[in-house]
């Protein structure tokens, strides 16, 4: 399979601190790749670098061979790299359906003025967005909540809505920031199944996550970070038996690795 996203020699310094140090890896098409690591390993920074919310100090990120580092986030989104957020970041005061409809922005063919005047193109756009939003909501099991104001949703559904918003942008690669955080076992299993369904639809997924059992279950490959550096890369089985990884998790942190 071809490489969709390439991260090469990516480095980010904040003053004297090197949050991400010379990291390289690539994501293949239709792959689920997870980035894991103890707290403070640089996962979130890496995530923001890939989604162009931060500019790298050096190194670059390429999507289908095209450099996307240094672009504004909305341009990176237009190129096909779309992120979800760690916190349950949604448009709180809109209905669930409106949240997904608004996220179809990249597919607009009408201009702002067109939408203001209600031209034919604008009306066609809005009809298409509505239909597509309904389909996405059905896929993520949110149809029954379509009319609900988003801030009233329970935690698990909020996360699903965050993913629905990401999907609406028709990304080539979807970046999920800790999709399982704060979920109980059942919710996690449902989310694992959902992420798998997305991949079956041809989506490439990069996720940053703490939850080891879920990561081991879901990932095709895993990249492990510690102190801003990549210490391992491989299949879940390889990672579970990697000495450096075990040391990083058990040596310095009292955190379960899910064995």
């Amino acid at each position, binding site marked *: 399979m071809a490489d969709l996203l390439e991260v090469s020699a990516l480095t980010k310094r904040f003053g004297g601190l090197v949050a991400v140090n010379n990291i390289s890896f690539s994501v293949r098409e239709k792959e689920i790749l997870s980035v894991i690591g103890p707290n403070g390993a640089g996962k979130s920074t890496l995530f923001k670098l890939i989604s162009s919310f931060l500019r790298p100090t050096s190194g670059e990120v390429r999507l289908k061979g095209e450099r996307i580092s240094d672009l504004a986030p909305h341009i990176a989104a237009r190129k096909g790299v779309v992120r979800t957020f760690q916190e349950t970041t949604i448009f709180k005061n809109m209905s669930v359906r409106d949240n997904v409809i608004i996220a179809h922005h990249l597919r607009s063919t009408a201009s702002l003025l067109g939408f203001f005047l209600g031209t034919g193109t604008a009306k066609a756009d809005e009809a298409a967005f509505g239909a597509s939003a309904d389909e996405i909501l059905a896929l993520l099991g949110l149809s029954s909540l379509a009319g609900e104001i988003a801030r009233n949703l329970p935690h698990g559904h909020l996360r699903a809505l965050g993913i629905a918003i990401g999907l*609406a942008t028709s990304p080539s690669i979807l970046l999920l920031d800790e999709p399982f955080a704060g979920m109980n076992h059942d919710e996690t299993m449902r989310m694992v199944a959902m992420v798998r369904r997305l991949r079956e639809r041809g989506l490439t997924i990069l996720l940053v996550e703490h939850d080891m059992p879920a990561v081991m279950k879901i990932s095709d490959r895993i990249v492990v970070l510690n102190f801003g550096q990549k210490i391992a890369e491989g299949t879940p089985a390889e990672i579970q038996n990697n000495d450096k990884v075990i040391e990083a998790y058990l040596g310095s942190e009292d955190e379960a690795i899910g064995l």
Partner: protein
Amino acid sequence: MTRSVKIAPVAAFLAIVFIAVPVLISASGRIDLYYTLTSVALLSIASAGVWLTFYIGRINIGQGAYALMGGYVSAILVVTYGWSFWLTLPVAGLFCAAASVLIGLPILRLRGVYFAMVTLVLTEVARLLALALPITNGAKGMVSIPLPGALTILGLTIIPDFATLHNSRLAFYLLAVALMLVCFAVVYRLVHSRVGKLCQSLQQNEDLASSIGVNIAYLRVIAYAVSSFFGGVAGAIFAAISQSIYPSSFTVTDSVNFMLNCFLGGLGYVFGPMLGTLVLYFGWDLLFQTGRFQLLIYSTLMIVLMLFLPNGLLSLAATTRKKG
């Protein structure tokens, strides 16, 4: 779908402002009320602009700057360059919109209280500029601005020369109200189109809006430019009515009032600023009789209103409708 339902209230409103009010005023002989109501209409146009910046999640205390700018642009073009007032009206609006793009590009990155502080300073900067620039005639201001002349298109007189009119107050009233209706129609349409949803997405979460591909900087600047256009147009008509404009015509107090109008009427409702302006303007005048307690009572009432009706006066109507 709701369009047919809304014809009734719109028709009623048109009948009130264009028929009932002039009839009542001529019956009661209180010609001065025209001036008051014209002011309310103009101030509510400027407030509608402020409301629009609230709609993208920015607290704007700088509308006075654009009203002042618009007034001066129109006055200078009419007095110094002999332009027709009718041409200066859109030009004043566009000038303010252009200026707001230049000012907005750097400052719209700021959020919350930081943006509010900068806009507050803006009004003061506009006043000092009007004092200092040679073209604005300093503290003496621009006076004896001629009344708007006739507006003729293809030999057809659409609006007669205000100076020849028997009752120019009525003419100004009709002009201001008509313009107010156009402005609110524009805002209403904006809010109820996809553009409105995009603005809301900015207000609710700029990072997420950006991540779904919304060009947030562009949208913010557009909204701010429309907002300032309204301010400029309102200011231009004010200069024409009072036939004068001074550096102190619009001050920080006015900027604050534009914002209060929005708060009072309700930030969640398109017509909030219109109601807010009406209530505030007449409320202030009614309290005039209380003499030196005017400001005290006024501010106490405002605080109480904001505590108990944080969503503005129109939220009252919305809740009764829900219950009923």
